[in-house]
């Protein structure tokens, strides 16, 4: 702590001297402001946007505010629900304003600080500018940045709160995006039973079946779902389809044929709670997901080489016992503390 606290304060000073973020009170009570010991170095460093209570609370209010959508119906929290690790429960694809349907499954929001790009196709490349996409997407919040800022500046409460944090008015896009990033960067899930196990903390015991699953996971899954973030952040074609007319995936961004049908490898943290699965939400259960890898992988020119077996079969062969052990292990990645953390919930009036 002696080292961490002063470094925090100085990081704040450093930033404040170059940016108009006036409030630099360091605080360690903001969720996610202490980085988990078993995680790699984050992409979005703490000192990039030093967590403060006031700015975090502002971001939290914005995250749950439906005013940000054109119709006032949809907030970020509408499709990113805390009780399912900020994924969208029971929605194959998300519902935007006027009940418009999106094209992809809303991903869990967790450990975003460690990601260098976002969405299933990696289009947005910075945590701060990411919200511009759902805000302006016609099938999501369908609003313009100009209108959002107009509404915030006309609000009875926001101008005072923004000025308290950033020192200047009116509220501009910089302040809006920095405040939202205070909240989204705070969403850190690192207190599952698995985490307690690897950090050798109290409560960190795994059963025999869970340990077998863990060993299997290391040999059969961890190339892609790597590190304690449980993703290598890469884009891969995991054999869901033979053609990609419905969604070209990563190629939508890169326009490169070799990226056709590739999608971001998702983190498996809280995976037992984030159904449905895959970019289009086609699988309802983890059993279906494991069955897909065992029996359902189909070939296409961009199929990931790891899913081509020497026997010219596709996928990852799994016995019934192995599936059962893997499911047991995956359940240890559920982080009750994260999904029940009241500091991350919508503030009740």
């Amino acid at each position: 702590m002696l080292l961490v606290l002063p470094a925090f304060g100085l990081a704040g000073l450093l930033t404040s001297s170059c940016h108009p973020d006036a409030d630099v009170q360091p605080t360690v009570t903001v969720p996610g402001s202490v980085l988990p010991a078993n995680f790699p170095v984050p992409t979005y460093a703490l000192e990039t946007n030093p967590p403060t209570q006031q700015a975090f609370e502002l971001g939290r209010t914005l995250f749950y505010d439906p005013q940000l959508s054109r119709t006032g119906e949809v907030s970020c929290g509408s499709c990113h629900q805390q009780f399912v690790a900020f994924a969208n429960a029971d929605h194959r694809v998300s519902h935007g304003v006027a009940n418009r349907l999106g094209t992809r499954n809303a991903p869990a929001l967790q450990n975003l600080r460690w990601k260098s790009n976002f969405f299933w196709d990696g289009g947005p490349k910075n945590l701060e500018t990411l919200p511009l996409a759902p805000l302006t997407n016609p099938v999501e919040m369908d609003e313009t940045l100009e209108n959002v800022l107009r509404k915030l500046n006309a609000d009875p409460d926001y101008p005072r709160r923004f000025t308290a944090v950033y020192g200047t008015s009116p509220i501009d896009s910089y302040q809006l995006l920095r405040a939202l990033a205070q909240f989204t960067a705070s969403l850190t899930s690192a207190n599952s039973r698995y985490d307690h196990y690897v950090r050798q903390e109290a409560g960190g015991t795994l059963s025999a079946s869970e340990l077998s699953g863990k060993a299997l996971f290391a040999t059969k899954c961890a190339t892609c779902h790597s590190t304690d973030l449980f993703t290598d952040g890469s884009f891969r074609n995991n054999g869901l389809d033979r053609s990609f007319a419905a969604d070209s995936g990563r190629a939508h961004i890169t326009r490169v044929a070799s990226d056709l049908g590739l999608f971001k490898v998702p983190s498996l943290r809280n995976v037992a709670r984030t159904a449905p699965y895959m970019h289009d939400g086609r699988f309802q259960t983890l059993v279906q997901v494991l069955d897909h890898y065992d029996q359902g992988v189909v070939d296409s020119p961009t199929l990931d080489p790891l899913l081509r077996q020497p026997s010219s079969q596709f996928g990852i062969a799994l016995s019934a016992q192995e599936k059962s052990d893997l499911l047991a292990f995956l359940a240890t990645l559920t982080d009750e503390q994260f999904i029940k953390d009241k500091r991350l919930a919508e503030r009740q009036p």
Partner: protein
Amino acid sequence: MLFSKLSSLWLALAFTAITFTSCDKDDTTPADSVGGVDIEFDNVVGNSPLALNTGNYTTAAGDQFTVTTFNYYISNIRLTKADGTAYVQPDSYYLVSQADDASKHLSLKDVPVGDYTGITFTIGVDSTRNVSGAQTGALDPSNNMFWTWNSGYIFMKLEGTSPQASRGGLLFHIGGFQHPYNTIRTISPSFNGTTLMVRTDHSPEIHMQADVLKMFASPNQIRFANLSNSMGGATSVQVADNYSKSGMFTVAHIHAN
């Protein structure tokens, strides 16, 4: 514990040093040895000044068109001297918008006095700033020059109409910074032998001209019947090659002032 405290102290010193050096840009150049440089951008279509909405124009290939929006980024301006040394403007980002006269006038301050013989700048925005976080000024996403679904700036935006276009509209949003569809272009339009003399009491002015016709002429002839809509990708690269290789941006003249 002692180690931690010492480390904190060193961190403090290091951060303090960074703070001062990173934000105090001009500490090496005394105020009495700098001057200003103005750069004026005149957008033209061939021999005519560009008039939004009302002007009717014809490309070299014979397609007719009007322009309703014309914006572009100019960044990373660098003034070079005959001896090869250069002044590199820090935090150098400008959005030139035909609809906003003030935006066509770039005012560079704190340029070290000297005789400059050339200019280099980027049409567009460097790759770093395409993926940086929230930004202000010319790079504020409120300027509607930022792609939200695929982070990155629209480097040059031309919208308009053409009877030859399949749906009547022209929509050229040129941008993208990643291989193989990188449209960042850096050019060095010639001063044509003139010297830009920066003095403490002289603010010379460079008159740049940007000719819209050159976007569509060479080396890649654009016919609106075939291409009227480009938002990144291979067709954007074609247009970017046109505006960098065809001399779209030229120095018309330099006022010594």
